[in-house]
C-alpha cells in the first residue's frame, strides 16, 4: 500500500464498486521533434453503473484518455486501474485480455469487419476469449436480439444502415459482459434519428446496470448521461453530476 490511490482501493466515498480509477495520468507523445502533452495529470473515478460523458474541444485529450481507459494505450506517468487491476503495469498480452473481457468499444466509424456478417462480427470477442462455436453463436444471437437486430444476423455491414451497424458494434462490445462500455462519438456518423435511437439504447443498457463512458462534443448527447466531465488542455476542467 505504498502507491497513491491504492489506499482507496475497494470502494469510493459513496461505497459503490469502482470500475475505473485514474490517478495523475499524463500522456506525452513525440511527433517528430515536437512534444505533445495530450494529458497533463488527470484524476477520475468511475463507479459501477455510471453513465458518464467526456466532453471538450478537439485536441483536449479526450481520445487519448479514452485509449488509456480502454487499455489501447499506456500513460506516460500516473496510474490507472480497471476493476481494481493496475493495468499500467500489465504486459501487452494481459492488456489484450483486459480489452477483451473488461472493456467494450463502440467507435464513431463502427469498425466492423466488412467481410464478416453481423453475427460473426459479434462473435469476434468471444473467439478471442476462447469460447466454443455453439456458445458464441448462442451469445451473439442473444445480443443481436437485445439491440433489436434479430432479423439482420446474416447481413454484412455493407447491407446495413449506419444505425444498424452501430447496433452490431454495441452488441459486439457487450459480448464478453464487460465492466464498462467505451463509446467514442458513437453518433458522429449517424443521422439525428438513428443517433437518438442509439442514445436510447445506451440509456436502456445503463438502466440494466451497465457502466458507460461516452466521448462526445455534442451537448444533446451528453445531456442524456448522468455525469459530464469536461476536459481542456489535457486537464479536467469540470466534473458535474446532472442526474
Amino acid at each position: 500500500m505504498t502507491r497513491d490511490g491504492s489506499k482507496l482501493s475497494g470502494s469510493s466515498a459513496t461505497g459503490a464498486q469502482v470500475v475505473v480509477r485514474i490517478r495523475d495520468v499524463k500522456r506525452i507523445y513525440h511527433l517528430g521533434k515536437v512534444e505533445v502533452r495530450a494529458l497533463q495529470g488527470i484524476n477520475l473515478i468511475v463507479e459501477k453503473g455510471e453513465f458518464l460523458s467526456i466532453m471538450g474541444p478537439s485536441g483536449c485529450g479526450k481520445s487519448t484518455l479514452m485509449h488509456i481507459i480502454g487499455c489501447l494505450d499506456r500513460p506516460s506517468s500516473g496510474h490507472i486501474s480497471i476493476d481494481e487491476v493496475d493495468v499500467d503495469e500489465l504486459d501487452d498480452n494481459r492488456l489484450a485480455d483486459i480489452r477483451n473481457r473488461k472493456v467494450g468499444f463502440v467507435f464513431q466509424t463502427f469498425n466492423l469487419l466488412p467481410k464478416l456478417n453481423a453475427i460473426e462480427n459479434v462473435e469476434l470477442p468471444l473467439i478471442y476469449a476462447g469460447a466454443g462455436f455453439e456458445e458464441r453463436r448462442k451469445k451473439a444471437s442473444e445480443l443481436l436480439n437485445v439491440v433489436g437486430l434479430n432479423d439482420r444476423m446474416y447481413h454484412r455491414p455493407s447491407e446495413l444502415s449506419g444505425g444498424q451497424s452501430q447496433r452490431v458494434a454495441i452488441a459486439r462490445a457487450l459480448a464478453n459482459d464487460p465492466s464498462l462500455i467505451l463509446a467514442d462519438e458513437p453518433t458522429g456518423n449517424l443521422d439525428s434519428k438513428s443517433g437518438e435511437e442509439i442514445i436510447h439504447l445506451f440509456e436502456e443498457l445503463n438502466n440494466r446496470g451497465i457502466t458507460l463512458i461516452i466521448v462526445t462534443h455534442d451537448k444533446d448527447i451528453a445531456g442524456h448521461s448522468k455525469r459530464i466531465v469536461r476536459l481542456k488542455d489535457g486537464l479536467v476542467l469540470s466534473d458535474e453530476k446532472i442526474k
Partner: protein
Amino acid sequence: MINLLDPFKIAFGSLLSNKLRSLLTTLGVIIGVAAVITLVSMGEGAKSYILGQIGSWGMGANSLVIQPGTGDATIPELTLTYDDAVVLRQKIRHLQYLMPEFVGRGRCIYGKKSYIPSYTMGASADYPLAYKQKAVEGRFFSEADDASRRRVVVIGKTIVNKLFGSYSPIGEKITINGIGFTVIGVLEEKGTLLTNDMDDIALIPGSLSETVLGTNKIWEIFITVEKDDQVAQAIDDIEKILTARHHRVDFHTHTQQGMIDIINNILNAMTGIVSAIAAISLLVGGIGIMNIMLVAVTERTREIGIRKSIGAKQRDIFLQFVFESVLITMSGALIGIIIGTLAAWLIMHFLKMEAVIAWGAAYSACLVAFLVGTFFGVYPAVRASRLDPVEALRYEA
C-alpha cells in the same frame, strides 16, 4: 490451450474473399510443384516401363547372364561351349532355368521360298519359361527333343509370314542351311525391342547348333534361380565350375540387379536436377508470398487494429497471418500436384506409356510448401502482430 482452429478459419475466410490475388500469389508455387510432379511422374512411368520390358523378357532379380570373355573386349573370344552348358545345368544349386544362346546364320527354304532370319538360334527347352515367350501354335521342343537331337524348329511370326503367308506352318518341312527340319511351333509375338524385330527368329535344339550353324560356341547363357537371394550363390557355383573346366577366368557374369541399379541411378540423378529447379522456383514463389503478405498487412492495418481493440493478442494476429501464408502455399502445392499429375498423365498417354503418380514427390512438395509458407509468412506476421492498436485504428486505407 491454444485454439488453432479459429485462426485457421479466419485465415481461410480472408483467402477466399480474395480469390484472384490468392491464386496469383501462389502461382510460383503452383508452377514449381507442377513441374516437379510432371517430371517425376514421367520418370517413374518411364522407369516402370523399362523395368516392365525387362520383366517381360524374364529378366527379374533372380536372373543372371554368363558371357564369354572377361567383359573388357568389344568382340570377345567365344569361350563357352555346349558342354559347359550341360555341366552347369547339372551343378548349379537352386537352378530354375538355363538358356544358352547359340547364334548363327541359317538360310530357311520352304518349297521355292528362301529366307534368312535375323536370328537362327540354338536354344534349350527352357526358352519359353526363361524368356516368357511360349508357342501359340503347336508346341516348343522338349528336353528329350534336345537330348535326342530331333530336327524340329519353332519359328517366329515374321518367318511364318515370309515362308507360309497365311497358311499354318505346323508339320511342314523346311531346310535350314540344307538340313531338313519339321516346324512344330510358332512363337507368341513379341513385337520390336528398340529396333530389333523380335519375331524374326528360328529356334532349334541347342544340341544341333554345331551341325546346323557350324558352331557350338555360346554368345551368352541366361540363368534363373528359384529365389532372388540365391543369385550370389549361383555366381559362386558358376565361377568354380567354369574355372575348373577352363583353367582360367575367360567369362563374366551380369545380374539384372546391376542393370536395374543403373536405371535407378539415371532416374535419381534426373529427379535431383528437377528438385533443384523446383527449389529455386519455390524460393522465388516464397519471396512473392512474403511480398504479398507484407502488402496485406499494410492494407489490413485497420482490421488488425479492430481485432486488437476487441481483445486479439499478438499471438492471435501472428497465427492468423502465418496460417494465411501457409494455407496459400499449401493450396498452391495441392493445385500444382493436381496439374502436374494431369500433365504427366497426358504426356505419357501420348507416348503410350503409363504415368505413375509420384506420391513421394507429392508428399515432399506439401512438406516443402508448408516450410516455405511458414518461413516466408513469419516476418509479415510478426510485423502485423506488433502493430500499435491506436495507430492501427487510426489508419486510413
